[in-house]
């Protein structure tokens, strides 16, 4: 059977990337960054400054990356001398399978993920409380001219109890294109467009009641100035938003063997630091991602998969991580395919450290997630998908869940029609 050819000119396909480049330039003119929010005047003195760079170094690496494997694949039938769509299971939404799209075939997709971070090291970002002191240092509130404490000592600062609500969100739209260079070799290019949002609310109590040695005398008749007697409560809120491109990701996949007894492919990804880390849109460094991909279609209905890879930080190898995925896709009913994959990332070392971690520290993290989604075939080579990633542990910066929806369309390149 000859499949109807759905073609898209190369100029249109390239247009996705070209437009992305133009928008990337426009994002660079954004004055100030989200990380700068923590150094804003409203938050000055609250020892939150180091949080910005710490988030910048970690947030983008936690964003989900949609599979580069096309849901629809083609195989050349020498009898009919045409490319035929394989009617087996659709590919995974997160994770990779060994199958390639087919020589001269093109798959274009767009996905959207909503990321709303909720915890850091298991602690709610909605109510982070500062450490009372770290090696004799405190989050301090200046008292110009000084004040005499209840026990008669003099000080020109008071410690602060801070309740912080840090809301970090990212809306990530990722156009992606996959092209089959040879029957065994795919090239994929993805460039996410992100809108990131940071909202920091703090409530300060001065002096910190956890440090009774800083207790102030009781206020008399309410005539005393704030922070010279009793206790004072202060609220602040700072928010900012940024739009820009994330890290450009080039992924290559080459099939090493087919059906003997499994499909085995080698993958290589290269991530370019096109995203601004200070806006939580990129990692800020080149990353090389070699990967071994194993999958096997069973009874044209199930496709277990196993991915083993390393995310090598080309700027600092110590900040690399081991990545893996294990799971399966399965045809459920008619055009509907379900995908369930366990995902893991094991960092070699902490991605950064905060010198005075009053609110949290960045540790070496092991991320374990479970990804579950459904895909539905439409119009023969179109696929819509919906997926959710839920965390299985609470190491590092985490969301409660990450929803992802996507649509893709595969077609034969004009040179194959």
């Amino acid at each position, binding site marked *: 059977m000859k499949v109807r050819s759905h073609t898209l000119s190369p100029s249109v396909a390239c247009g996705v990337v070209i437009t992305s480049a133009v928008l990337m330039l426009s994002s660079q003119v954004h004055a100030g960054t989200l990380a700068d929010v923590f150094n804003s005047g409203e938050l000055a003195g609250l020892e939150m400054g180091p949080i910005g760079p710490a988030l910048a170094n970690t947030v983008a690496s936690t964003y989900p990356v949609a599979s580069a494997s096309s849901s629809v694949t083609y195989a050349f039938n020498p009898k009919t001398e045409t490319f035929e769509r394989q009617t087996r299971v659709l590919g995974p939404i997160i994770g990779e399978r060994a199958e390639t799209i087919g020589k001269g075939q093109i798959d274009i997709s767009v996905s959207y993920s909503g990321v709303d971070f909720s915890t850091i090291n298991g602690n709610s970002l909605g109510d982070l409380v500062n450490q009372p002191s770290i090696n*004799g*240092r405190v989050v301090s509130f200046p008292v110009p001219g000084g004040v005499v404490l209840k026990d008669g000592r*003099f000080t020109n600062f008071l410690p602060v109890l801070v309740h912080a609500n840090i809301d970090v969100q990212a809306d990530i739209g990722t156009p992606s294109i996959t092209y089959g260079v040879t029957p065994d070799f795919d090239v994929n290019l993805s460039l996410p467009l992100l809108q990131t949002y940071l909202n920091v609310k703090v409530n300060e109590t001065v002096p910190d009641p956890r440090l009774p040695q800083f207790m102030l005398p009781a206020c008399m008749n309410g005539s005393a100035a704030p922070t010279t007697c009793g206790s004072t409560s202060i609220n602040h809120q700072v928010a900012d938003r940024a739009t820009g491109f994330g890290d450009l990701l080039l992924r290559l996949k080459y099939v090493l063997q087919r059906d003997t007894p499994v499909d085995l492919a080698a993958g290589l990804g290269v991530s370019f630091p096109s995203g601004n880390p200070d806006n939580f849109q990129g990692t800020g460094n080149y990353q090389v991602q070699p990967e071994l991909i194993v999958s096997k279609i069973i009874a044209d209905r199930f496709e277990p998969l196993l991915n083993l890879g390393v995310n090598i930080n080309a700027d600092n190898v110590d900040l690399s991580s081991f990545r893996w995925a294990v799971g399966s896709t399965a045809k459920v009913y008619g055009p509907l395919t379900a995908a369930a994959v366990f995902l893991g990332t094991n960092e070699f070392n902490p991605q950064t450290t905060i010198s005075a971690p009053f609110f949290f520290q960045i540790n070496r993290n092991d991320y374990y997630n479970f990804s579950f989604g459904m895909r539905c075939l439409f119009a023969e080579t179109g696929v819509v998908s919906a997926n959710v990633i839920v965390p299985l542990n609470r190491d590092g910066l985490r969301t409660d869940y990450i929803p992802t929806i996507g649509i893709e369309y595969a077609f034969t390149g004009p040179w194959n029609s």
Partner: protein
Amino acid sequence: MELVVAVVNDRLKRDDVPMKAKMCYQSLARASAMAVLVALAACGGSGSSIPPNTNEVPAPINTFVYVDTACRDSADGFSMTQELRVLRGENGPLTIARIPMVGPLQVPVTYCGDLALPRSAPLFLAFGGFQRLAMSPVATVIVFEVTDDFSILGQSFVPAEQKGIFRIRPDGSGLRRLGNPSRVPAISTGFGRSESNFYFSPSGRLVSFTDIGPGPGGEDAVQVFVLDVETGKRTQLTHMPPAARPGLDGGGADDFLNERTVVFDGIFNPDGLNPDGKERVFTVDVVTRQIKVESTVAIPGGGFVAVPSITGFGRVTFPAMVPGTPVNKQAGENVFELFITDGTNLLQLTNFGRSDTSPGVPFVSIDGAHAFFVASADPDQMNPSELCQIFSVDALGGDVRQLTRFSASQRSALGCVAFGRASEGCTTEFNDSQRVSQDARSGTVVFGSSCDPFGTNQNGVQIFAIRPDGSGLHALTDARGLVRNTDRSVEAELPGPWSYGPHR
């Protein structure tokens, strides 16, 4: 290398020390002075670490170096010997350099007894011989100075070619002369000022100190210098005009803020930075020689204290006068309390209301969580004699703890300023360099005291080590102190100056 600083390599078993020391001193007393350039190796070190009189495990020490000075006033005149000794871990003292017997010299006063009476070893710097001293941050190099150019004895006993600044390893090997001694005395006339330390840079490559160099008009004046302990290169960092007060116009060189920045203090006005002539803390860049005046923080009573910026030191703790009348007027008329600052935030740590709180150099612990200081207060009713004890306090002002339990049968009226007869009390001091009084690894605190916790320090000074929680107190030295003999001769043996490492 022939040196009056005779390099010896004596390590004594601790059990041997008392007898060895006694024999040594007797031999010194009999010896004639100036001609003796022979290392008295058999004397060895007379220092010893005395175990505490409890079952506590002594606080661990790493590398401790000190000068042991023994002198004698007798009918024959004044005589003296000095040794540079090292204690490492649990080993006995090792004498790594020595100035052989000096004297008997005919001098107009009984220097030995007079200078030993206050029980303050820095006064012995006035004799000459071993002067400034320092241990490198990781305890691999000792730098020391030998000169008698400013000796109150009025006679030279160190050959000119053997005066200088030297480096040596703690095991006694690798002695090398780095250059001439400083032309600024380590202790000034009237004893108003002493500079018994070199100050190492964080890497251990440079030491800072004061020396004479040309001022802005080419005239000689006291200046800040650094010396490269690898090459011996000496670099003048400042060009101050001559000053009225001793030393660096009353101040002196101090620790490095970082590898490129040396701190010093005084009342001068370099580059117009201190037009009102107040005592200020300055920094000078080792490379560019640029001088900066450091920030000041207001203190109660309208005063200001100059403190280095947060870079490098992090925080400093210091005593400052506050308004009020002290509860112990005999020791002084003003109230002094301990403060801590990072250059911006200032916090009063104590509220003893006494005149003698922290007369010496307090310091912030290696981990920054505590400050250590001396005081004669009795906040927990554990110091009824009001002797000069070591305290720690949380860097945020709480949890004042008395670490030592020195005791006496009668109350000390002078507390921490009891420089004099034992009947007046005793004093306790840390090193003048804020960095070298605590072991950077174990946290052990090292200090000198004329108090007598073990009944072996009735009229002298010893250097002690104690854990930061107050346990494991033991003596690192076994100096005899001041002894008046029945033949009217006076003998004295005091330890100091001293240094300790690792301290970074």
